[in-house]
């Protein structure tokens, strides 16, 4: 491990204070991450020291607020190796980012019979906007199947790509941990004249991100899963595309001119940022990026790989066939998300008993109902790892699972 997790834990107030007299084992970072004190403080200091509306004020306070916001845009742009910070558009969450693409680019460029190709791993955020376009514009939604082990089955890719205008895939699955070969898919998309959107909600927080290497055209992610505040998401898009897309939400900031008769749109990124932006949230996300960079995304990735290996091994050793771990077991193609089925105990009941042992995991469909259907289950128990987790957390999970088994075999 390339950093000391006990030091890292101290950065996160919720993990280092005592809760109900037993310390919290937080294994639900795929739902939302905990926040380091530095991020919390960045948000507070914004309100305490520089709060003002941005872009429109000539006074120094407003200028400070604008600078704080635009500096954060630069940082976030650098963080994903975007070449131009105006390719960073702030939204409220990844869901809005994807909807923006569907409702601006999609509505303007897709019609009857055009195909959007999704992977079978997708989160509802990367499904429902396309279903909505199917309803409104008659597009077809098509699915890349999965292999037995939860990888994308690309054997029929050529056929799947017929008529495709957009390939929209998650950079990492929030259920199985699977990390699909985005570069391959992006290249294949481009080869048939299609674009490629990556839902990187579970990718950007966990590994170094380079949009040029990924080769995609749009990248969506969300602040609260990467040590940042709630209420802030990002859409990165190639400027040539963003410039040609019609605006999405209409209002202040996104216009050059408005008359009683019509309006002209502003340039990017503002064209897509109608109304007062989530300023403190943008500043907070900038601080989150600073924090993650101070740890080093390479280190985060390495740590999670090591810990995932340990978790897979520990759970296999201790529970054998009693515990199913869905998805691939090869840590080179998966992240630290573990979807579990334990004996025949319903996930909701498992998580209830785990909670009683101070272990926070999620039970449910994880907003991926089509995937659940393929897995043949209604829900799973999901434990997800992040930089502040260590082997003791995994051990606590295993202990609590054992106790769960005992409890229900009373």
């Amino acid at each position, binding site marked *: 491990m390339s950093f000391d997790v006990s030091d890292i834990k101290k950065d996160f107030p919720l993990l280092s204070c005592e809760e109900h007299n037993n310390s919290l084992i937080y294994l639900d970072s795929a739902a939302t991450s905990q926040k380091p004190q530095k991020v919390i403080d960045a948000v507070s200091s914004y309100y305490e020291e520089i709060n003002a509306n941005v872009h429109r004020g000539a006074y120094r306070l407003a200028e400070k607020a604008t600078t704080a916001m635009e500096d954060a845009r630069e940082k976030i742009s650098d963080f994903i190796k975007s070449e131009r910070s105006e390719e960073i558009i702030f939204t409220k969450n990844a869901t809005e980012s994807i909807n923006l693409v569907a409702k601006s680019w999609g509505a303007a460029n897709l019609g009857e019979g055009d195909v959007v190709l999704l992977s079978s791993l997708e989160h509802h955020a990367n499904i429902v906007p396309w279903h909505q376009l199917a309803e409104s514009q008659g597009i077809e939604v098509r699915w890349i199947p999965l292999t037995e082990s939860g990888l994308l089955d690309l054997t029929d890719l050529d056929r799947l790509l017929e008529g495709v205008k957009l390939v929209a895939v998650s950079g990492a699955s929030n259920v199985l941990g699977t990390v699909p070969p985005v570069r391959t898919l992006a290249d294949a998309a481009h080869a048939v004249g299609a674009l490629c959107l990556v839902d990187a909600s579970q990718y950007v927080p966990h590994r170094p991100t380079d949009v040029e290497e990924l080769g995609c055209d749009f990248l969506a992610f969300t602040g609260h899963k990467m040590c940042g505040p709630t209420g802030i998401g990002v859409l990165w898009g190639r400027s040539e595309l963003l410039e040609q897309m019609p605006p999405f939400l209409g209002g202040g900031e996104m216009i050059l001119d408005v008359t009683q008769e019509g309006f002209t749109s502003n340039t990017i990124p503002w064209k897509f940022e109608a109304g007062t932006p989530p300023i403190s949230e943008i500043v907070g996300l900038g601080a989150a990026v600073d924090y993650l960079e101070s740890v080093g995304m390479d280190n985060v990735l390495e740590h999670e790989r090591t810990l995932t290996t340990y978790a897979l091994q520990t759970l296999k050793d201790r529970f054998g066939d009693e515990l199913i771990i869905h998805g691939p077991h090869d840590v080179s193609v998966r992240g630290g998300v573990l979807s579990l089925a334990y004996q025949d105990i319903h996930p909701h009941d498992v998580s209830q008993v785990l909670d*009683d042992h101070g272990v926070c995991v999620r039970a*449910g469909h994880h907003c991926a109902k089509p995937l659940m259907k393929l897995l043949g289950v209604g829900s799973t128990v999901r434990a997800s790892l992040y930089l502040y987790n260590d082997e003791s957390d995994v051990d606590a999970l295993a202990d609590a699972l054992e106790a769960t088994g005992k409890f229900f075999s009373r």
Partner: protein
Amino acid sequence: MSGLEDLYREIILDHYRNPRNQGELEVPPAVMAEGFNPLCGDEVKVHIKVDDGVIVDIKFDGQGCSISQSSASMMTTAITGKTLEEVEGIIYSFKQLMSIHEKSLEGGSETVDSSTTGLGDLQALQGVVKFPVRIKCATLGWNTLEQCFEELDEN
């Protein structure tokens, strides 16, 4: 661990492991409704057959946690043979039970609204209110039953 023991009473686990009235009925003469818990993915289907204002048969089916399935199972035993009016009363009482606020449980000695005392086995579900997220599990079958009633009204 008192909270947990309180949630997972013996009788609940029994209904979970050995669900009563599991299955389906032919539609018509029965009516059917389907309920989802969008949060956790639980699903339940309820079929009821009503003759002369009396529930003569009821079956449920679905996938879900011990709370949602046992609650549905206990519901079927509680309402079979009852008139629709009586069932409305039971539904009301059960929802009362589910809305007794955590606070009142913590404070007093688990004093229960008298209107909920006629629930029999269902009383065992009272521990659920200490776990607000699970209330939706416990009421899933019941809300689906109410949907069946709406179906009936429409016919």
